[in-house]
């Protein structure tokens, strides 16, 4: 746990009165289930978990937190990869899992209104009959919540064509850190002078809790074609990605997997990816049937210029879904190699892919760690997964050192720290590699606009200036222990 708990029995009773006894949890075995998100390197338990049923209950709970200055953290499905829900300074979790209703699907206006505890994949299941879909599709979509997606400005496989979460959120209902309920944006997607929705999306739960969202729905494409191309060299695949994107072709997905990943998914899903390839690309084209045919004509000469070992087109919908299932399950498949992973999420210019991927290979070798790459290549959004055994402190140390080097290699070519997983606690210590302290202060001022008391998901995104003797709240193992968290 973080700081001394501020949750007195009286406060606990107040929360129980709002949401009901059954929905205030503090049994040690229950709190343990909440001790980390998918960034398992860091752990810390909340003092209490409160599970409200609706916006009014969220507001009442937050009002109490505001009055007693208790940190609160919104919790969706806990699939975050940057320690975004880690209660570094203690406090309560406000879980959105009971607020999981799709309130309205309006096919005429191509919008849906949902509670933010709704799981991403449910929305697509329910909009499909209307020949519509919700475009942002993180690989975790079977588990992650729309609220978590909003907070992280999540991306996904199809975002290379359709844009990320912020492009699909038209309106929000938000409980502010002062306990007010406010409506931002609307079904039209416009604003009056200040883009509150745009500011909120991606703020990682530090500006308040989104309780409902109006999302944009997109017509399902008439035709989808998926190609699997394999390469004997990772660099050939990377060069092709750069050329495809420079040509102006707009694939609906362009994903890359390296040899470690190929082997892991072949074992886990019997996908039959070419076992001897150093990389495969999954290239998807979608749209009007004629348009897809023409895009294919444009794609083929590019493929032939880049030493493609094997090219296969998914024969039917079933094969297409299997390919994507393997891609989306890649991270889980790594469990066959080592029990955990530490994952970076930098974005680099696509023309730098060859150079940076070569560097990542070298960094892995130098630090004697296994790095598996599976990523949104069309966006230049890398996901080097450094595999590890959390019970092996020496390995963890090497993993962290390799991670930092990868990150610096990306920044050196004009990259950014994160493309979709957010900064959370995990990357906050690196923010000063990208921003000046004045710029960080400009961001801190924004936080103060929404949350003057600093109780909404504190300690996230913004680093603490480190000078002699000051402690950063980053990932270095000894420092995590110093903060009361542990590996």
């Amino acid at each position, binding site marked *: 746990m973080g700081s001394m708990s501020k949750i007195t029995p009286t406060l606990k009773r107040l929360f129980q009165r709002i949401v009901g006894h059954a929905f205030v949890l503090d049994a040690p075995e229950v709190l343990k289930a909440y001790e980390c998100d998918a960034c398992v390197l860091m752990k810390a338990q909340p003092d209490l978990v409160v599970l409200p049923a609706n916006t009014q209950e969220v507001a009442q709970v937050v009002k109490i937190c505001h009055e007693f200055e208790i940190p609160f953290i919104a919790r969706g499905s806990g699939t975050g990869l940057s320690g975004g829900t880690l209660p570094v300074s203690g406090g309560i979790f406000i879980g959105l899992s009971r607020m999981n209703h799709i309130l309205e699907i309006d096919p*005429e*206006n*191509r*919008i849906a209104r949902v509670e933010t505890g709704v799981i991403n994949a449910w929305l697509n299941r329910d909009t499909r009959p209307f020949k519509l879909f919700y475009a942002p599709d993180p690989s975790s979509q079977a588990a992650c919540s729309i609220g978590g997606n909003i907070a*992280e*400005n999540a*991306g996904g496989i199809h975002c290379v064509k359709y844009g990320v979460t*912020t*492009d699909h959120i038209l309106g929000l209902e938000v409980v502010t850190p002062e306990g*007010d309920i406010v409506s931002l944006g*609307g079904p*039209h*997607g*416009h*604003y*009056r*002078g*200040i*883009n*509150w929705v*745009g*500011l909120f*999306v*991606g*703020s990682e739960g530090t500006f308040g809790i989104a309780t409902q969202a109006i999302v944009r729905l997109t017509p399902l494409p008439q035709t989808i074609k998926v190609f699997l191309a394999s390469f004997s060299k990772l660099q050939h695949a990377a060069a092709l990605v*750069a050329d495809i*994107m*420079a040509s*102006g072709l707009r694939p609906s997905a362009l994903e890359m997997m390296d040899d470690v990943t190929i082997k892991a998914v072949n074992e886990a899903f019997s996908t039959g990816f070419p076992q001897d390839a150093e990389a495969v690309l999954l290239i998807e084209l979608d749209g*009007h049937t*004629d*348009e897809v045919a*023409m895009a294919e004509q444009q794609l083929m000469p590019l493929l032939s210029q880049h030493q493609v070992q094997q090219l296969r087109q998914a024969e039917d919908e079933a094969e297409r879904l299997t390919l994507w299932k393997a891609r989306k399950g890649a991270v889980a498949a790594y469990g066959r190699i080592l029990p955990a992973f530490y994952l970076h999420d930098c*974005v680099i210019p*696509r*023309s730098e892919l060859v150079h940076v991927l070569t560097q990542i290979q070298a960094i892995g070798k130098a630090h004697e760690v296994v790095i598996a790459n599976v990523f*949104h290549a069309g*966006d*230049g*959004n890398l996901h080097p997964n450094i595999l590890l055994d959390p019970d092996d402190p020496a390995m963890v140390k090497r993993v962290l050192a390799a991670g930092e080097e990868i990150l610096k290699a990306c920044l050196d070519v*004009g990259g*950014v*720290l*994160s*493309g*979709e997983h957010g*900064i959370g606690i995990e990357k906050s210590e690196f923010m000063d590699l*990208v*921003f000046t302290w*004045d*710029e960080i*202060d*400009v961001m801190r*001022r*924004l*936080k*103060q*606009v929404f949350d003057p008391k600093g109780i909404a998901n504190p300690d996230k*995104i*913004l680093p603490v200036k480190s000078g002699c003797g000051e402690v950063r709240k980053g990932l270095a193992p000894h420092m995590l222990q110093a903060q009361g968290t542990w590996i």
Partner: protein
Amino acid sequence: MIDLPVSEFLSTLPPHLAPLKNEAERLLLYPQSQEDIECILKSANASEAKLGLSESSNYALGYRPMAFLSFSKLNRLKRYRQEELLINLETGITIEQLNQLLAEKNHRLPHVYAPSRTLLSLLGEDTVSLSATRYGPLRQWVTGLEAITGDGCPIHYGGEVVKNVTGYDLNKLFIGSHHQYGLVHRVILKILPKPEASRTVLFHLEDMQAAFTLAEQMAKMIHDPEMLTLFKLKNTFGWQILVTLSGYLQMVEQSTEPLLHVARGLNPDLQELDLPAKTLNQWVERLDWTNLKESQALVIRVALPNQMLFDLPQLLTSFPWLSGADVLIPLRTGQFCLRWHPLSQPAYTDLLAFQKTILSLGGFIRVLRIADPADQGYFDLNQEPDPVLLKWQARLKQQYDPKGILGGGEINGIP
């Protein structure tokens, strides 16, 4: 005579920033670099001299800038990443200049804006382009920017990468907020190669209902039009529909035929096929109602869910005074604009009643421009009804421009 804070302000500026006076007796400053803007803002803060932008005219009630900044010398290309389809520019550049630059490499910014506009003014308003039907708002094409906050702090956000969640999204703070919190002097935009083919067709129909019916049929029929805009202007004949199809040549050809077929069924009074680029640009310039040159008008923007835009004939007829307005509806963009020339503008109370109806439909109206400074009262319609938003807005101003140097500190009628 120059009043004290102004002379104090001017005296602190280096010689190369000495102001010029234009024909309207405005003091104009021409910064040429980020450092110049920083210096001007810091000096203005020290002497509490209020500043305006000559490229933008959205000033709030009673706001009288002491000097104006022109970004006309901040119009340089900084980096052209052809292989990334990204361009890094100063924001004083006009759309015409930008289009020329891009055309040399067979690229384009797919957003259709008036050639005379600067990126600075478009970003300040987050102006919805006529091609937003396909390409969404301009903000989605901005991958990074550099700005100076009202109190003189230089910042950057994003970069020459197409995806980013590193820190709070400062792009969203500066784009669309009418330069109230800072001045954006540099921007990185996504661009596209020119399409293989592009075809613009203009239909003229006298009857409003026929025009809406045709537009609705086209919206259903055409796969992903680049532009589908319905409008009515004073001194032109009836209603017009401007349609642009672009993409692969074969697709454009295939889509045009059924389009013309449907149009024939509704018997348009005139149709102009293959509008030349020059004529299209002239139309776009005429349809850019927040452009400074169009200042002699009251302009409002109405946000409404997309499908309701097809029910507009009903709305327009239930408020008869709306018949005197120019109407501009870029379909599938969730909004439309109305414009009145000074002698025909509606009474404030009529607009208030209209606003009530729009609010009840889940939309809002926003006054973008008034015809005459004496009509400032119309801006009251912009007031954000929610006290929480007003509180946040006041805090934003306090954080980024505490001395109210920029724009008088008002967006929605409050400081």
